[in-house]
């Protein structure tokens, strides 16, 4: 893994590697004094500058795979079932998108589809690709492309908010009908848990450093 660091262009002065700039307040600090620690925070505004984790790639890979396995049941199995006067109705995450679409609110259904389903899935697939690329030490350029997409989408995956939405809906409907919780909800909670765990483990700056070090001999990897 320790190939030549070809991420630093020649134009940049050598001492730049000993310095570290805060992305949130632009304070310039000496990296030597900071880098012995596992975690680096800005001295002025406190933002997290870098964090190093051992076995980050294999650890994250196992979490990504777990999350992807949970994704299908979490999206398509019943989350809630409701009984009113002998009528029964079930809903999964996917049904909540379809329901909005059929009630004439296509724009909002697209919003729910994106934030509740599509973006979390695309994020996981991007993470999988990036981690595999680092693991096998190839496909540098496409991995960088997919990690950029992941970073762009980071804010837009909203599984945790969706879960809160489910809880509020349960309280809202609790009084007026008999509610049953489905297997989908258990899978959804597990998916959320694994995804948050993954987000904590897969440090973006460590990933960028590893991406920069991929020794990609075949230019046609893209």
């Amino acid at each position, binding site marked *: 893994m320790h190939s030549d660091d070809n991420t630093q262009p020649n134009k940049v002065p050598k001492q730049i590697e000993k310095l570290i*700039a805060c992305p949130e307040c632009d304070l310039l600090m000496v990296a030597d004094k900071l880098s012995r620690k596992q975690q680096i925070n800005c001295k002025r505004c406190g933002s997290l500058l870098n964090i190093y984790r051992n076995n980050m790639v294999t650890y994250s890979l196992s979490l990504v795979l777990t999350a992807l396995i949970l994704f299908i049941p979490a999206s398509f199995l019943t989350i809630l079932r409701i009984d009113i006067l002998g009528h029964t109705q079930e809903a999964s995450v996917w049904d909540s998108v379809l329901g909005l679409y059929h009630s004439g609110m296509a724009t909002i259904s697209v919003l729910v589809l994106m934030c509740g389903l599509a973006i979390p899935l695309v994020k996981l697939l991007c993470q999988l690709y990036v981690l595999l690329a680092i693991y096998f030490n190839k496909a540098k350029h496409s991995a960088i492309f997919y990690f950029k997409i992941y970073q762009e989408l980071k804010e837009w995956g909203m599984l945790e908010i969706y879960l809160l939405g489910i809880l509020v*809906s349960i309280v809202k409907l609790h009084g007026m009908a008999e509610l049953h919780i489905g297997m989908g909800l258990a899978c959804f909670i597990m998916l959320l848990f694994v995804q948050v765990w993954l987000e904590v483990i897969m440090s973006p700056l460590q990933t960028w450093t590893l991406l920069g070090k991929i020794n990609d001999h075949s230019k046609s990897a893209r």
Partner: protein
Amino acid sequence: MTTVRALDRGIILCHVCHLQTSIHDENTPCPRCKTRLHARKPQSITKTWLLLITAAILYIPANLLPIMTVNYLGMATPSTIMEGVITFINLGDWFVGGVVFTASILVPSMKLIGMFILLIYVQYGRLLPPKTCTIMFRLIEWIGRWSMLDIFVIAIMVALVNFGNLSTIEADWGALAFGSVVIITMFAAMSFDPRLIWDHIESNEGNK
């Protein structure tokens, strides 16, 4: 302790991958991730102002129009965001009422006001200590997405309560306006460069 900006020493950071490069590389693609390099996000203040004003205008229909309509035994009852909160509180459910109130009313209002304060701060300065502003910005950035709560509640309710003539729930135009406010304010927070908060201090006081 002297505080030196990276920019003053000719060092700039890539917006996306945070690679440190020289100021001479500005406007060229980042050597690592190929994103165009800039010392600060270009047009940050103008873009944030435009997005924020758009969100503030949409905030009016978002609160005045009904977000969903409950049809029960042929009777249609539309309700706005605030009416939804009041329903919870009338039912004695203070906790859930509080959560929905925070996510749907408090957070978007605070976000709009907070971003206005930050923008005025970076343009005219000295309202609050810079550290307070940075913390405020982080809070705004982190909490903004939670306003999507109501949209998801509507989505689940629409799918679940669908019993033909007996009872249905439908989304209404307020939900569209509200969803747009959430998204546009998220874009506004993303286009704001928090380093501008500290730049202002630097130009006023110099080194401490």
